[in-house]
């Protein structure tokens, strides 16, 4: 199972890549493997404010409807339209082209509550 070292992880299986006050968010390799074939993805609208732990995006597979939660609080500043056209990017490249949205962090201190790669690996029993 791929768990990049440079990311932080929410218990609900989202990752965040932090650069300055901006975070890029997606779902983990483990999450996409559990969901199986993803057939619908809908990133949040630009300008939307989300709180840590709140539903931010829709990710649905053939068999299961699933919500994706925001790992941090902030304002959505960019959404990945490519995954709307091709939701399989979440399966094939969850940490790259399958990113879901970018968020401006309003409280970087929240990052401390997230797992590092080792912690997330322990959580999923990998």
């Amino acid at each position, binding site marked *: 199972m791929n768990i990049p070292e440079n990311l932080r992880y929410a218990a609900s299986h989202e990752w965040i890549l932090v650069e300055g006050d901006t975070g890029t968010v997606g779902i983990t390799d483990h999450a996409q493997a559990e969901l*199986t*074939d993803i*057939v*619908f993805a*809908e990133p949040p609208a630009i300008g939307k404010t989300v709180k840590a732990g709140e539903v931010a995006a*829709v990710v*649905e597979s*053939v*068999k299961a*409807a699933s919500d994706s939660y925001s790992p941090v609080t902030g304002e959505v500043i960019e959404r990945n339209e490519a995954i709307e056209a091709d939701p399989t990017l979440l399966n094939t490249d969850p940490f790259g082209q399958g990113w879901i949205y970018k968020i401006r962090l309003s409280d970087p201190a929240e990052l401390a509550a997230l797992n590092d790669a080792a912690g997330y690996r322990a959580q999923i029993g990998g």
Partner: protein
Amino acid sequence: MQRTPLYDEHVRAGGRIVEFAGWEMPVQYTGILQEHKAVREACGVFDISHMGEFFVKGSDASAWLDTLLTNNVSQLPLGHAQYSLMLNERGGVIDDLIVYHLAEDRFLLIVNASMIEEDAAWMRSHLSGNVEFENRSEAFAALAIQGPLAAAVFEKIFQRPMPSERNRVEEIEPGRSYIATTGYTGEDGIEWLVPASESANAWNTALAAGAFPCGLGARDTLRLEMGYPLNGSDLSPERTPLEAGLGFFVDLKKTAFTGRQILLDQKSSLLPHKLCAIRVLDKAPPVRPHYKVYVNGEPVSETTSGALSPSLGYGIAMAYLPPAYSDIGQEVEVEVRDRRFRAVIVKKPFYKKQP
């Protein structure tokens, strides 16, 4: 929880095991979309060992089955299979099943896994005349080999051509092994019954012959694209086969079968509901069972089945609608995630094979 004799093979092949109708079954191996495509474009093999096998024999077997089933058993030629329905006194569907005509006074019924006990109890309680009924579900495993390349796979397994006619039945080994050119996918292929103890061999023979292992996930999307009903979802004891659009499999000219009078009454008046095929027009999250259906802004029904069609790329669903809203072309809306999406009633099947 029950397991089919192929459980270990599924785990070995990387099958993702889920609960289905009291059985631990593989929902997928590599992925539902890939397996779906394999059946539409090549050949897939499904474990359908959870389904039930009933043997009915005796000089009154055909006449007795005709009192319990909607289709006409006495007109079913030897060596052929027939889709049929078993109804309760209210004309509602207990189960849908396939009848194999094995010999003059001998029949084999293939019934849904979730209904084995209930079907058997119903049939036993209605026994009459010179009829022997035997539930031998645990003795059999079954495979469905389906797809445009099924004939080639068949030829590798059996060293002879696959029967070209649909709904043919062959008893390969009396009482032990059968094939029928039937299926639940809309593709060519067979369903193959073998003794439970020989199932792993049959499964591995099918894989070696080029069939792609497929799980229940693809089985469901494939059957829904054809508009084939699933008992427990699209069929129920509260709905008649006429409401379900299965009138083709109901012979009202037969003098007597359970539920017949209700169907005659329905036929002479207006059906209270009709099972409709719904195509979603807007780009929408997948429609699933029990999603609300609206007409003119009012909730009128809910979906009984639904999926994002892998072959067609848009949402498809079925729902019972009142007669006023059940015509082809009727505009409806389906509610997904608190939003309503435009949809329209279309003719079945959703998916038509390219010639």
